[in-house]
């Protein structure tokens, strides 16, 4: 797996430091994921509602669930944003105002929106909600950012194609919050400028129907008679098509490696990005908690002492436990090339699974109560991790059920079991195990 280069030396000795702490913005595909994201250190989470969002296959929140999520997040001082990032069609227009009013009533802090009609409707229908311009608008330059500022928007999520240098220029020219994706899967196209799904499956990619056709397999050919310069069917039959691939070649795909900017936290903060966004409303609890936990620690470490900040190798190791694709740095340093795409069958199962949630810990007996989330049994090698750096490995010993009966395995989803643990744990700490190939 490609890793972001790990730096072992302080990166910015002797420099002046910008000390505005960025927001860590995490995805939350459902209420449970929201709670994990917040507990593991997200300053804000973004979710999808029942309409107007680009993940029509995700669980998505009802307004009641949103209220509960906001209440939970507020206890941590965290905010909840809602993605209303589709490009609306005629049939979608009527409900916008009412939907936005409901979001406002639920206590949602901001919507993330691409379509200007939603931007405009929000101003009157839900004036208390901040409007953030979605990356789907592919905003790449400071004058476009200036335009949106003049339209009253406090924040723009830039296109993933902007480099650090370009972000610096935007920040220099416009006083506005800039949000950038720092981790997760990427469209290889300009976001929103791809209708492959529409063409292949009649699913509207810009209304949440994307079927990831960019990751399908293609063959590349060339016409010997270029530019469609045929005059008759007979001549066309003589036009040869030359394959530009050999039998042993990989197929052509547009699939990108995933973004990972963990190795560049100082650069991201220095350039003044206000919100670090993690992609992945469809990702697992384990993924969200792991990624948020790592970025939280890295950002906090840098902010506490920028001069002596060192990227810890164990952070990268942690991230890799949740990754199923090779990683790269997107457009931040240069335009991606052949090393930034996935041609080989490199996608693989996530190396670790969520095995249990710590519900309780008894310091006297050193026994933890665990809610089972995946099969484990005595002898299984496990890891515990939690916010604030809790991390240790051990082997599962005796497992008891709640009545104290010994179990040969924790088989039942959500079953509460007890086991002795090597170090103290807290509610919400997580237990993971290696994903063993069957």
């Amino acid at each position: 797996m490609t890793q972001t280069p790990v730096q072992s030396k302080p990166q910015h000795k002797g420099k002046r430091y910008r000390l505005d702490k960025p927001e860590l913005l995490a995805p939350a595909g459902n209420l449970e994921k929201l709670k994990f994201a917040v507990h593991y250190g997200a300053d804000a989470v973004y979710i999808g509602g029942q309409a107007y969002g680009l993940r029509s296959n995700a669980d998505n929140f009802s307004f009641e669930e949103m209220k509960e999520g906001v209440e939970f997040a507020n206890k941590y001082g965290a905010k909840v944003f809602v993605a209303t990032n589709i490009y609306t069609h005629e049939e979608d227009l009527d409900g916008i105002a009412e939907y936005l009013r409901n979001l406002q009533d639920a206590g949602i802090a901001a919507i993330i929106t691409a379509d200007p009609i939603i931007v405009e409707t929000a101003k009157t229908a839900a004036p208390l909600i901040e409007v953030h311009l979605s990356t789907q608008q592919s905003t790449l330059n400071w004058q476009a950012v200036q335009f949106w500022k003049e339209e009253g928007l406090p924040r723009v999520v830039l296109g993933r194609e902007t480099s650090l240098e370009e972000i610096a220029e935007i920040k220099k020219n416009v006083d506005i919050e800039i949000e950038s994706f720092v981790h997760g899967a990427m469209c290889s196209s300009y976001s929103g400028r791809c209708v492959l799904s529409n063409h292949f499956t009649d699913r509207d990619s810009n209304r949440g129907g994307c079927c990831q056709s960019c990751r399908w397999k293609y063959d590349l050919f060339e016409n010997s008679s270029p530019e469609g310069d045929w005059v008759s069917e007979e001549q066309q039959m003589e036009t040869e098509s030359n394959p530009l691939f050999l039998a042993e070649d990989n197929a052509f795909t547009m699939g990108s490696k995933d973004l990972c900017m963990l190795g560049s936290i100082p650069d991201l903060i220095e350039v003044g990005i206000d919100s670090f966004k993690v992609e992945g409303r469809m990702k697992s609890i384990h993924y969200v908690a792991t990624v948020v936990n790592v970025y939280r620690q890295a950002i906090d470490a840098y902010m506490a002492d920028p001069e002596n900040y060192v990227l810890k190798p164990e952070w990268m190791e942690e991230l890799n436990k949740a990754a199923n694709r090779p990683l790269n740095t997107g457009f931040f340093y240069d335009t991606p090339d052949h090393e930034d795409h996935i041609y080989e069958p490199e996608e693989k199962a996530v190396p670790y699974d969520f095995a249990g949630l710590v519900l309780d810990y008894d310091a006297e007996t050193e026994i933890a109560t665990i809610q089972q989330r995946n099969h484990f049994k005595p002898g299984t090698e496990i890891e515990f991790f939690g916010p604030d750096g809790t991390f240790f490995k051990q082997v599962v010993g005796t497992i008891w059920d709640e009545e104290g009966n010994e179990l040969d395995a924790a088989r039942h989803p959500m079953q509460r079991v007890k086991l002795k643990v090597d170090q103290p744990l807290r509610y919400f700490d997580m237990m993971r195990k290696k994903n063993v190939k069957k």
Partner: protein
Amino acid sequence: MGYRPELLATCGTLDELKALAEAGCDAFLLGEEKFGMRLPGEFTPEAIAEAVAFAHPKGIKIYVCANNLMDNDTLPALPGYLEKMGEIGVDGIEFGDPSVLMQVRKLLPDMPLHWNAEMTSTNHGTSNYWGRRGATRVVLARELNMDEVTGMMPNLEVEAQVQVHGMTNIYHSKRSLVHSYMANQGRPVEDDNVGLNRGLYLIEAERRDELFPIYEDSNGTHIMSSGDICILEDLHLLMEAGVQSFKIEGILKNTAYNAAAARAYRKAIDSFVSDPEGYAFDEAWLDEIRDLQDPRRELSFGFFYKEQVY
């Protein structure tokens, strides 16, 4: 004055422009790669001036395409370019990026502005939003269906342009995907030519009869539709709805083909305008297009009669 829709085409050269004017086009969209996306050829400001000098005496309009996703580096060149277009006296500027809208409003307050964000121009509310900020026309997304287009016409406060013929872009990346693929296979592109005229196309593993043209330019990688839109048979529905401009996309087609398309749509429009009540589609109008159609590319209604899900 009665309803008389515009027939617009893109064109790659001045010669093509002249041939398509002869074939009946009222307006042309042209420009250069630096500011405009997916043009069939390059028109420098000098060539645009020539086009205008040719077109205006004939009552033909010249619109300049500046609908790129602009980056910071392109911004300094914009004011000079736009002022030049003002001096030349072009009839409108097509934009997608707000930076262009702002610059045109500032430098050329009377210049008509056409909003063309391609696949994201999908409803009347957003079209009117841009209208209130200076746009005079929306170029509607090709992924809309007939009901959506005709349904929004009464609510539009700006003119509507609908592509009725030719291929469409279905994927645009800033990445150099052909170069990357060939480099990955260990056979880097030698002559650096992976542009429009190379004739590259993709075939998806499970759809062997669909050819998707692909090319690279300085704006990245573009993948085009495997079929060509042809609305001619039902053009009256759009004319009855009052669509102001019909577009023939000429990219990746030769002039003979585009001229055939222009002649066909010209006949339909003229026939409708002279007698809307008595209008009847004539199958023979399609003959010339069908004769020249690449047999590997399907002529279809595109998304006009499709219901998309999500």
